[in-house]
């Protein structure tokens, strides 16, 4: 099997619009969460959200290119420009090689709702405009990035709920390991508009700690009361090792293991067995001893049952190993379709800069989180291998193990 390495990263998130900005936010423990009055006016139970700026791409892209892009495709474009630049890949390279594209995305609500509103109001489908169909499809991110960057390898959107981004990287790694692709642009994108999560708010999944937005997302804390929705996009360039060496690419890390499983039970409540299986599979495929893992980036979203069951799953596998565990969602909220990719980047930034960012708002453990080593203050520490969990509705689980290079 061929080795898979990471040669470029890029991000657009509530913690920053570049790797440097995001690194600084992780280092200082800055929260990206705000209270959005528009959501309250719309009748939301919780108006909490991550604050993500929609990029103005008028100077970078033509009108016709922008016309087909919903907000999450714009985030993904910016993240991908940064990742390709860092990987030392230009358009000439993309034009001469079959580069693939696997991106996590699992909704595109805003353009869908707007088109339906137009049809209902005007009774004329032409008035939806030319962009609506391309913006509304679940594969909108991969169809936009694929055409803008003229990519000619595998081109697929991975929809695995809140594990979409992690599955995209894991599946990309498998395609490279088996020699089917030399390079794949992987990632995850998440829209932030109110329409996208209105019905999610409706099932009382969100924190209502509206008087303290920055304290609302508190994974593993005893007093957590739900997640905070977030978004943006994260891009990771993965590449076959020898290929990367040959072209003199900056080799940042190796994707050692991808584990996956499904719970096969409840649509929203996770169990312990499924995630445990995903963790074990990733570690086994990485071929490492768990003592080599210096940091665990948990999926933990700040929901009661989710965090509890993940804490149990991590303890099942790591027992008394006491590896530091944090959930970067304490700062970002839940970046959902993007999270599996962004959390690889957050972990990479910490690994490359010798620190583990605080699991902010972790003030009091509960019975299960007490068994884990969860720092609520930044730790300055060198580590060379991390594990990242991503779990999603329907009981889909993904785990990635990454080693520094």
């Amino acid at each position, binding site marked *: 099997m061929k080795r898979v390495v990471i040669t470029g990263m890029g991000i657009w998130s509530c913690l920053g619009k570049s790797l440097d900005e995001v690194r600084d936010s992780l280092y200082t423990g800055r929260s990206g969460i705000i209270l959005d009055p528009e959501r309250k006016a719309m009748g939301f139970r919780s108006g909490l959200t991550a604050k993500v700026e929609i990029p103005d791409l008028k100077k970078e892209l033509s*009108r016709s290119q922008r016309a087909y892009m919903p907000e999450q495709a714009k985030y993904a474009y910016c993240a991908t420009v940064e990742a390709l630049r860092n990987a030392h890949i230009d358009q000439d390279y993309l034009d001469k090689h079959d580069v693939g594209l696997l991106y996590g995305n699992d909704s595109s609500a805003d353009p869908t709702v707007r088109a339906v509103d137009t049809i209902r109001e005007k009774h004329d489908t032409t008035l939806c405009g030319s962009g609506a169909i391309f913006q509304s499809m679940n594969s909108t991110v991969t169809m936009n990035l694929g055409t803008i960057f003229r990519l000619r390898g595998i081109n697929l959107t991975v929809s695995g709920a809140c594990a979409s981004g992690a599955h995209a990287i894991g599946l990309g790694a498998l395609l490279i390991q088996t020699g089917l692709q030399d390079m794949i642009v992987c990632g995850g994108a998440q829209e932030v508009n109110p329409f996208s999560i209105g019905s999610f708010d409706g099932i009382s999944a969100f924190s209502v700690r509206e008087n303290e937005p920055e304290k609302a997302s508190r994974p593993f804390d005893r007093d957590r009361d739900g997640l905070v929705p977030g978004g943006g996009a994260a891009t990771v360039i993965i590449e076959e090792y020898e290929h990367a060496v040959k072209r003199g690419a900056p080799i940042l890390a190796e994707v050692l293991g991808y584990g996956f499983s499904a719970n096969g039970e409840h649509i929203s409540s996770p169990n312990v067995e499924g995630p445990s299986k995903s963790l074990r599979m990733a570690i086994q495929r990485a071929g490492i001893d768990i003592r080599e893992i210096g940091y665990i980036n948990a999926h933990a979203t700040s929901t009661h049952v989710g965090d509890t069951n993940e804490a149990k799953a991590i303890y099942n596998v790591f027992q008394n190993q006491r590896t530091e565990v944090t959930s970067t969602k304490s700062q970002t909220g839940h970046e959902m379709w993007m999270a599996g990719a962004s959390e690889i980047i957050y972990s990479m930034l910490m690994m490359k800069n010798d620190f583990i960012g605080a699991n902010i708002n972790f003030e009091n453990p509960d019975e299960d989180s007490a068994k884990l080593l969860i720092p609520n203050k930044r730790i300055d520490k060198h580590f060379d291998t991390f594990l990242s969990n991503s779990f999603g509705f329907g009981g889909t689980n993904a785990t990635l193990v990454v080693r520094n290079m």
Partner: protein
Amino acid sequence: MNKQELIAKVNAVLAEEFEVDEAIITPEANIKQTLELDSLSLVDMVALIDNEFAVKIPTTELSKLQTFEALYNYLEEKTNA
């Protein structure tokens, strides 16, 4: 709105939407060529005209509107009707 005002508004909204210099829009110029419209962005022109002038251009009429002059005349007729 008199015809001069209509022409000014048509030129302004089209130039802004399709990101062209308003100066290149002349009565005899070809709409598709001037605004660089393909079959998809032509749909956006129909939606824009509907939004701005409350005039729906049927697909069957669209092919007859080759120049801006033809579009001005069509809109003048429909808005005065």
